[in-house]
């Protein structure tokens, strides 16, 4: 989810929370504790990296972006999900077709 939020370009923590909510249609509300723990882990795994730091209203904002490894992982994962979904849709369609 966090990787998806970063696929569009660099984002900061608060932006990711909003983006994840939007992507999930309001179902997933990331909490700050979970988010920063995940960011820390993703950074250690070198899937994301700090893009830049900005000071807004005297507070530091760190922007994260996907690394090439992160992009690859996200693409693989998305392809896998898409394949699953395709199979599921095909079978449902088949089942529906037989019923009629």
């Amino acid at each position, binding site marked *: 989810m966090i990787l998806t939020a970063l696929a569009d370009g660099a984002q900061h923590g608060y932006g990711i929370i909003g983006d994840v909510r939007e992507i999930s249609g309001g179902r997933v509300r990331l909490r700050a*504790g979970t988010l920063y723990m995940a960011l*820390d882990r993703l950074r250690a*795994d070198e899937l994301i990296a700090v893009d830049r730091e900005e000071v807004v209203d005297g507070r530091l*904002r760190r922007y994260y972006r996907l690394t090439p490894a992160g992009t690859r992982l996200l693409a693989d994962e998305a392809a896998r999900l898409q394949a699953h979904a395709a199979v599921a849709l095909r079978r449902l369609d088949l089942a529906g077709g037989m019923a009629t």
Partner: protein
Amino acid sequence: MTDQEHLERAYRRLLGWYPREFRDENGPEVLAVLMAGAPEGRRRPGLAESADLIRSGLWMRLHPSVPRSARTVRAAVRLMYAGAALSTVNLIIALALIGDINAYHLKWNGHQLTTAQLITWRPLIATVVIVLSLVPIAAWLWMARAVGQGRNWARILSTVLFGLDTLGWAGKNASAGPLLLALLTWLVGAAAVWQLWRPASSAFFKSQDFPDPALAGIPAMPDIGPGDQAAATPHPLVDGISPTIGWQSRPRAKGGPAFIIIRRKRLGWLKAVQTFPATEQGWASAWQSLIEQHPRAAAQVLAALKAREVEAARFRARWRGLVPQ
């Protein structure tokens, strides 16, 4: 105190659950996100929110994120968790065997315990067994955490602990089951120690040695101009701070020119307290020593070094202008 200040203080307290390194780097930002996400007029963090912060903080403390690039250290940390798991198995077995205290006693002391003795001693023995088994589990987890955070002392201490465990083998005469488990645990420890001392791990620990992230890395070795090497007295590259870093030209017999750590004694007398060879390596060591002794001074020296660099560049530019090439 306003509602907002009240809330911010509560959040700050909750952030105390996180490891210090994380807090130093991300604390203000997490706080800003928490504050931005809080509804108007709220004075206290919600229960779920507090639980989330505590859970994440504890998890990060227990399970430090080692960079992927430090593959060997990651492997060592994983092995240490495996060691902790094996020690837990050991504890469970020991608890299961407590029922057999009488058999043990017979084996070691050659006579049966009376029922009364058994009843009196069993709880005490059980407590001792549990406590003694918890110590290695705690040690594994503690070492895994400290090693993951790049603490070099943890690398040394875990090696020492492993050595002690190895020495313990001398007096061992247990039955096959526990022996196999102990051997397995020992092998895990051996593998972890091996991973810890591979060159790739050493590089990681070296890079983690700097206490202040702002001071990570070593500034470029300064050019020593003719004006800097005139005298044999300690010459601070940046004056007005104590301790500071400097330069001293010495006769070859005494080790040649050197980078030094200078302390200003009373009456303004400068004294070289530490000496390093005037090489890149020496410069790096001198810098590291300064950071360890006085991080704040190091930050000031760093700023001054940058100013000096700018000055030197300006001087070089002017010099080039004067001499046609």
